[in-house]
């Protein structure tokens, strides 16, 4: 008999771990404090832009993230196929651009990439060659292997096609206590805790990092792929979405504050996109989103395991980029029954 499993947290990680387990014939029950398709306000996973940028992330992240990201993209491709291409996943590459006065940031990114990769992973060419719409930026870096997942369309297809494969679904259920083999009064052989920031009380050296982003509708603006604008304080990106919409983000602030986006951050994000193209000036601000990224002190994901309980968390800024690989690692732990007193980082 395969162990019965409870997955707590139906964010991107919980959904992917469940996917691996169910495909392997496990009976899985899912607990989630929100509904099946929560608003971005209630879900870190649905706040995210869904970028798969393993190379660009090297600027601010450990090479481990790049490694996990590359493996995750391969897994995303399989998942995409599994769901009959029923959610938005693309690998059209990404473009990194910079204002002339921030050239130093671009040089630094090139240097870090050179340190980590022998083979070329980007092409340095005129920005207009890839994005004819963006003028006056000179040369940029185009990363052909990078891509995007659209979180909302993934959640939707998963709700529609996959939730029926679970043993039990406990949506809109606030879990009070998680222990080995136990979620409140429910008993299982194994409990997998992937609640993200909500697990804070149960984890050491763990905190939330505030991220703010804007959803803009600007039908005049045409972008082929997502664009990253080098910024001295945080990676700033513009991600094209269906219907002429764009996600513009994201700030990164060391505080656990969920209050609405600040005026300062709005100004920074908006002036950045306006500087990319004035046509953004005619756009409409559809909504602003604020959420807390769950992060360990080293900003790397971690799996903690004891008999009957696995905790996977710390996706930080890399939910869609690393969760397939992290989910696979959790699955391997379950499969090999190595889930006693191990910590993987």
């Amino acid at each position, binding site marked *: 008999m395969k162990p019965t499993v409870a997955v707590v947290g139906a964010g991107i990680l919980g959904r992917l771990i469940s996917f691996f387990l169910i495909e392997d014939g496990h009976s899985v029950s899912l607990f989630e404090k929100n509904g099946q398709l929560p608003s971005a306000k209630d879900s870190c996973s649905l706040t995210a832009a869904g970028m798969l940028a393993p190379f660009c992330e090297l600027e*601010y*992240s*450990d090479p481990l993230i790049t490694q996990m990201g590359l493996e995750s993209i391969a897994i995303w491709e399989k998942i995409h196929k599994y769901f009959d291409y029923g959610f938005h996943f693309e690998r059209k590459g990404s473009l990194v651009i910079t204002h002339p006065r921030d050239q*130093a940031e671009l040089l*630094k990114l090139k*240097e*870090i990439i050179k*340190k980590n990769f022998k083979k070329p992973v980007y092409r340095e060419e005129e920005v207009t060659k890839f994005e004819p719409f963006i003028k006056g930026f000179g040369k940029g870096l185009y990363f052909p292997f990078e891509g995007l997942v659209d979180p909302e369309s993934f959640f939707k297809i998963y709700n529609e096609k996959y939730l029926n494969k679970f043993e039990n679904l406990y949506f809109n259920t606030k879990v009070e206590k998680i222990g080995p083999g136990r979620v409140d009064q429910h008993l299982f052989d194994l409990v997998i805790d992937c609640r993200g920031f909500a697990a804070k009380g149960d984890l050491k*050296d763990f*905190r*939330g990092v505030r991220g703010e982003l804007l959803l803009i509708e600007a039908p005049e603006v045409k972008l082929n792929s997502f664009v990253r604008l080098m910024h*001295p*304080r945080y990676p700033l990106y513009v991600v094209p979405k269906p219907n002429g919409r764009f996600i513009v983000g994201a700030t990164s*602030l*060391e*505080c*656990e*504050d*969920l*209050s609405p986006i*600040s005026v*300062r951050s709005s100004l920074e994000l908006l002036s950045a996109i306006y500087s990319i193209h004035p046509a953004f000036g005619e756009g409409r601000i559809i909504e602003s989103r604020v959420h807390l990224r769950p*992060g360990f*002190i*080293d*900003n*790397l994901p971690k799996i903690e395991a004891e008999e009957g309980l696995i905790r996977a968390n710390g996706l930080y800024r890399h939910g869609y980029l690393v969760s397939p690989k992290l989910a696979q690692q959790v699955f391997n732990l379950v499969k090999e029954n190595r889930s006693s007193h191990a910590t993987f980082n």
Partner: protein
Amino acid sequence: MWNLFGKSLKSRLLLGTSRYPSPEVLKNSIAFSGSEIITVSLRRNSGGEGNPFWEMLNALKVNVLPNTAGCHSVEEAVTTAQMAREIFKTNWLKLEVIGDDYTLRPDPVALVEAAEILCKDGFEVFPYMTEDLVLAEKLLEAGCNILMPWASPIGSGQGIANPFALKTLRDKFPEVPMVVDAGIGSPSHAAFAMELGFDGVLLNTAVATSIDPVKMARAFALSIEGGRQGYLSGLMEKRDFAIPSTPVVGTPFWHNV
């Protein structure tokens, strides 16, 4: 060892705490560099009950020097300072009042005004200033017991733009502790500041955004120590001709012409 307002310190490196790849890298950079004073910004990251990042910094066994980075007026700076005193339980304050956003150049007029208010209110004010001599005088009159002239604009990594002015400032007030703050890009810049006789160097970007911040922090600690020892040992005066360091007895005198 040096003494700063009753604290006995070994390190002359003051580190900023923003823009590190992770809090852990920041912690390790502080530990490996031996830095004993860290600055932390209250604006932007403020809000919400109990900031875990601040709690982490408070738990480190180093002196926290809160700053008013991002403040553009006397009122903002004074309010931020009072918040800082509450949160970090210290009367130390790095006073920053920005006058020009592009260069992050401090506003000297507002700086003096804010310094006067805060010194009267019991703060130990560390003013972030340009290297202007008269400004220094006014800040000392306002009650500051330490000065923090810039090397060049914040985050520029340009190093010491005006060594002559910094040297003049140093020589004019030999008794006042002075820390060079901002614009330092490489360990050699920091060493140069110390050779000029400054008491310490404050920096952030050059460490935080390097490829290996922990190693870079250590590199700065070593260069600052080297510069300090060099200053104390008395640097040789420059000459415009060569003088052999080994005896040249035995060389025919006409060969030296």
